[in-house]
């Protein structure tokens, strides 16, 4: 047994020396770099899920940010060069602070697009606030994030909060779908519980009966839940959660005799839902505070779609236009600062910015919320997601 002992004993020594040497060399990696040609280089950070079960939502925004930065650099009108730094938090609040720290520790990062998921935002924001680094989210919709009691002084978002989506979704079900009773299912996540709570209170105000249930994300069996929904006799069922779990629920519901309308939220509004649920995804509807670029008809958005598809090798997804807008807002704030872009200056610039983006005109209220709010409704028709309109227009149509 001697050879094995020696081999195994040598391994830790090798690993130890490797560790020590890489330890010392990594210290020099941080610090802002000055790019070639005398122009300073600044970095726009991105935090969100790039891997993990709900990675697509993060990837959508990440690609859009990279496109915006690439176009800005190519335009030649910037007094500096821009780079993108990615921090993967897998949508997990436990990884949020570490990912945030990665961006904060890089002193050339002057603004962050993200974090993408509400839970990770809550965990990471104290760090951003302390570092004075602006974090503008394209998708974190939890209503409590802009609560002044949190002290998140550098947090902004360009999407309306869940309270707005919840109210609109409830009104849509009550007034457009004319449902007398609704079955709500949340996935126990920070996002799901918050959204379903908002929907439930507005449905109560609209005079609609509500049955609530919760199924933790990652459950391996939805057949009993589907049976409960089918037996409830409700006219509509709304799932508050993400596509990875909405799909098995859709499949299970298809196996029952449930005849009501099936809806979900922006976390499910993704082509991945269709590929995961197959034919069971047909006629599901989604509410989303996001604009679907694919359904837009104006020339600017269509150019965005073709540019995005060319650079990211896939069509834009949910929150891609929002991510693009956030990146461009940051660039618009940085440009007048010339070669002296600091984190504090970016935060101040954001407070007074007025930028016309693809999705909306971007102006922020003092608490970081965007002033213009609009909730869209989409439906899966013939295996594709199509836009039905905004909730307000649909309600007014009768």
């Amino acid at each position, binding site marked *: 047994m001697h050879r094995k002992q020696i081999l195994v004993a040598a391994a830790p020594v090798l690993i130890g020396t490797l*560790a020590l040497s890489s330890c010392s060399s*990594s*210290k020099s990696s941080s610090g802002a770099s000055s790019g070639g040609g005398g122009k300073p280089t600044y970095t726009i950070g991105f935090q969100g899920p790039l891997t993990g079960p709900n990675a697509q939502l993060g990837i959508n925004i990440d690609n859009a940010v990279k496109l915006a930065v690439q176009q800005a650099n190519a335009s030649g009108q910037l007094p500096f060069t821009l780079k993108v730094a990615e921090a993967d938090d897998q949508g997990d609040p436990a990884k949020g602070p570490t990912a945030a*720290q990665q961006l904060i*520790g890089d002193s050339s990062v002057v603004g962050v697009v993200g974090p993408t998921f509400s*839970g990770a935002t809550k965990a990471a924001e*104290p*760090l951003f606030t302390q570092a004075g680094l602006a974090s503008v989210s394209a998708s974190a919709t939890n209503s409590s994030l802009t609560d002044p009691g949190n002290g998140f002084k550098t947090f902004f978002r360009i999407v309306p909060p869940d309270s707005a989506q919840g109210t609109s979704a409830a009104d849509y079900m009550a007034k457009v779908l004319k449902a007398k009773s609704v079955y709500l299912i949340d996935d126990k996540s920070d996002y799901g*519980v918050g959204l379903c709570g908002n929907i439930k209170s507005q449905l109560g105000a609209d005079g609609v009966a509500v049955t609530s249930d919760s199924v933790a994300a990652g459950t391996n069996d939805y057949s009993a839940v589907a049976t409960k929904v089918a037996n409830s006799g409700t006219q509509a069922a709304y799932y508050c959660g993400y596509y990875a779990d909405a799909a098995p629920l859709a499949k299970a519901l298809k196996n029952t005799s449930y005849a009501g309308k099936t809806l979900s939220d922006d976390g499910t509004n993704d082509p991945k839902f269709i590929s995961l649920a197959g034919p069971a995804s047909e006629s599901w509807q989604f509410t989303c505070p996001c604009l679907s670029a694919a359904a837009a008809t104006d020339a600017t958005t269509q150019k965005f779609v073709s540019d995005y598809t060319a650079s990211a090798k896939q069509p834009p997804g949910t929150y891609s236009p929002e991510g693009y807008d956030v990146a461009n807002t940051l660039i618009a704030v940085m440009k007048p600062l010339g070669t002296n872009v600091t984190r504090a200056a970016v935060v101040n610039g954001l407070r007074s910015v007025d930028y016309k983006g693809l999705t909306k005109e971007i102006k922020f209220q003092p608490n970081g919320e965007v002033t213009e709010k609009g909730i869209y409704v989409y439906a899966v028709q013939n295996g594709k997601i199509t836009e039905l309109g905004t909730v307000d227009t649909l309600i007014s149509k009768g």
Partner: protein
Amino acid sequence: MSHVGGLPIRVRRSRKVDPRLVRLFGWLVLGALLRLMTVTAEGTSTDHLLVIDAAFKSTALIGWLVAGLVVWVLTELWHARKVGALVTARTTGVRQQWHAVAGRALSRRAALLAVVVAAIVLPQFLSEFYQRVLVDQVAVFVLLAVGLNVVVGWAGLLDLGYVAFFAIGAYTCAYFTGALPVTPLFTLNPFVVLPVAVVVCLVAGLLLGAPTLRLRGDYLAIVTLGFHEIVQLFLVNKNNWTGGNQGVSRPVPHFTINLLGIHYKWTLASLPYWFLFIGMLAIVVILFSRLEHSKVGRSWTAVREDEVAAAANGVPTVKYKLMAFAIGASTSGLAGVLYASRLGYINPASFPVVLSISVLSYVIFGGMGSIIGVIAGSALLTFLPAVFQEQNIVRQEDIPMWIGAILVTMMLFRPQGLIPSRRRKRELRLASEGVADADAMSEAPEGRTG
């Protein structure tokens, strides 16, 4: 002749394949597998063959296969020329001198002092990222591993749900500092919560252990796993009490000291937390060393090596197993308070089952039963992945895969761990010869259940 349960197996005389060729095949397969594992790509749901293509259709594969071939040649030569015996013979003199020096208590104390000084002084020279890694991960996991060592290494009980106590400790801290939706009976400073969390976790350990420690070892493993899952589900589902998946509603405050004229407030800076951790670890290690060399420690050893004989000699086995469980749980509680107030934000997702298994693997890797081994092993296995990840050598998602591979390899070749306790090593050797046993898990002779 190979043995199973002490009896010979019939050796088949027909179809004999040269074992050397079998070993060559093994090394080549290992090389290919390592190539597969070190590919930096990751498969997607639409392109399943992506990683396999990337691994095997490149020239790097040849490099790994050649490496496997070379290792095979070297090992065969080593075996054939009995190089191992030669080396042992030639270096007898050197080794004797080394043992003479290293065996002295003075050199052991000097080495220990050197390590402690390095631990205190060195972190100041690391970058902010690595300081953060040290406190967030290394500190917490070393504490956890030292606690789990008591349960697995000293009492020989397999606990797969150890992190449940970690969660209980962290949430106790959150509760008593007013961070949960439920208002506490009285608000405390995290420092004061330390003993409270220790007591709470102790009670939790006793509650879990009392009904289940009579179970057979492998059943105990599953029951502890089930306990962890139940605790997690409770944390997720009881929104009103624990905040559910949203986590704590207000940040958990940092440690503060306000007594005897010392006023100090820990903040987001990493180094003060590191020193706090060193202090906590020192106290725990000193206490546990005393425990190990006391009557309690000897009882644990007796239970571990042969439970029937220990019981026959009057050792109250269940009482000591319970004690080990409770002590392990309370250490976990300490780590939980440190973790909660350091991060400020906790939610049930911070305490997954994979974490329990990871801590167990750190303990096994380091050498269960020896405090130094466990500290070294867990420090290595928590610090290195961070280094590899930062240098982009290994992707973060692949780290559990490597930990699993390391576990299996260690169990196959060096089950006593990195720096084993001498007693443990002897136990494992005796167990393989069928003489005694190395854990409190074996089945009693026919007829007795559980």
